[in-house]
């Protein structure tokens, strides 16, 4: 039976597999990239099954392509459903983006225009995905480097998407900051516009300054401006399972756990402030 996600977790990355198999990593849950485990068998699945015994699991996909104008891939949904049935995750998520069109797969999280047409496509695809998986999904707000002309802001789009489909949100606080800087909107407006009751999980990560834009690299510690935004989000959202998503330049597990302690502290302070208010 699927477990419940709560507390503070980490993305399970290869250098730390042993600690998750042993159950010694001091985290409340783990998250993995779904596609890395949509395989016939072998060591990766064996590792995840063992880690799954010790920690509630979140499956986080990168290739569902919920924004594809030509729909979803049946074989992908079938493979993902198979993994869900084996692992019984607490959460299944992907991104508000598109990765594939006409049999071409970019392997990148590409931006959508926030138009009524795109909203219709996304909502149809979410309905199909949730039906295929037999459960509600969470969708993560993307970081982006292009802003298409559209009738809605990203937060308005997300709000309408959750209202129409019943899906939840995976709020990536770093992505809000990156997109806010790149496109010149106020992160506070974004947070104020998000339906916080739909937020089922939070991601924290780092980024780098590119030549012209902030680049969402997930290979750096969480920077102060993202911690500040996390504090603001927690003040609005209440307790939401939070994790650090480090994809590259992976440090020792202890270093990530120290970062996670910062998140624990901020979350506790925000809870105190909510009670006081």
């Amino acid at each position, binding site marked *: 039976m699927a477990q419940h996600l709560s507390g503070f977790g980490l993305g399970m990355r290869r250098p730390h597999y042993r600690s998750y198999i042993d159950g010694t990593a001091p985290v409340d849950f783990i998250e993995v990239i779904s*596609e*890395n485990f*949509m*395989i*016939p*068998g*072998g*060591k*990766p*699945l*064996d590792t995840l099954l063992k880690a799954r015994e010790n920690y509630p699991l979140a499956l986080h996909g990168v*290739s569902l*392509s919920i*924004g*594809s*104008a*030509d729909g979803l*891939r049946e074989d*992908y949904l079938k493979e993902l459903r198979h993994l869900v049935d084996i692992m019984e995750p607490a959460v299944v998520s992907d991104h508000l983006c*598109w*990765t*594939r*069109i*006409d*049999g*071409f*797969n*970019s*392997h*990148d999280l*590409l931006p*959508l*225009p926030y*138009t009524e*047409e*795109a909203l219709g*496509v996304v909502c149809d695809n979410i309905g199909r995905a949730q039906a295929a998986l037999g459960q509600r999904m969470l969708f993560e707000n993307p970081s*982006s*480097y*292009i*802003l*298409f002309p559209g009738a809605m802001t990203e937060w308005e789009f997300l709000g309408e998407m959750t209202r129409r489909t019943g899906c939840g949100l995976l709020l990536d606080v770093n992505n809000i900051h990156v997109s806010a800087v*790149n496109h010149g909107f106020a992160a506070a407006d974004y947070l104020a516009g998000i339906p916080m009751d739909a937020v089922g999980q939070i991601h924290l990560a780092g980024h780098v300054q*590119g*030549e*012209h*834009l902030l*680049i969402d690299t997930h290979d750096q510690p969480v920077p102060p401006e993202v911690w500040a935004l996390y504090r603001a989000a927690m003040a609005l959202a209440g307790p939401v399972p939070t994790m650090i998503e480090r994809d590259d330049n992976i440090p020792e597990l202890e270093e990530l756990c120290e970062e996670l302690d910062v998140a624990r502290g901020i979350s506790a302070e925000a809870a105190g402030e909510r009670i006081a208010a």
Partner: protein
Amino acid sequence: MTLLAMQRSFRDWLVTGEDAAAEALGGSHGTAVYQNNYRTALVSSLAETFRRLALWLGEAAFETAAARYIDARPPSSWTLDAYGEHFSAFVDGLYADDPEVAELASIDWTIGQVFVGPDAEALRPEALAVADWETAVIRAVPSLLVMPIGTNADAIWRALATGETPPFPEPAKQGTALLIWRQGLEPVFRRAEAHECDVLNWSAAGEGFAAVCERLAASLGDEAAVTTAGTLLGRWLSEEMIAAVG
């Protein structure tokens, strides 16, 4: 522009890198970020999958081959791990005079496939005691793959994997093949012995052990055929290559 038209323009930009395609998306600095992300992810994936080939070719030559492959074969699978499926054949075309290059790529690729192949319990030797050898068919573990080779790419691969100085490339004896499979969770490979591929192929086609021995006897004689088949079976059992006999 419709969503479908925008997504096709975006695909064209990623695949071609042509300015006109970028302009259809607004031509901002952001388009370059996506172009860089696209190519970087594909090169990294190939470098991860073909680690020993990359060592053999050197970083610059490998990245050139990867760049040409990316231009020739835009990705279609939903998993990056599948992107290198045709890379061995592609480098075979680039390095036609150096056949060990494509074979190194094939070993890298096949070991990766075996690593995540279907699970199966290896048969314990004591299970043979109840086998009916008149009808018994040997079933190899599902991860087993037979790979013909024409060079000493296997020796080169092993040296590269362990940080030793690789041998110079040289041709292998005609009919040489590698057996690649998984012992538990770890992929392993070795060269096939004489008659080993024949026995495996006949067994995979559903021929019983008695029939396999008869076919071997046609070339080896009765006594040597039984000895050879028995020796191979013993070796396979000890190497966790057999899933069932029955």
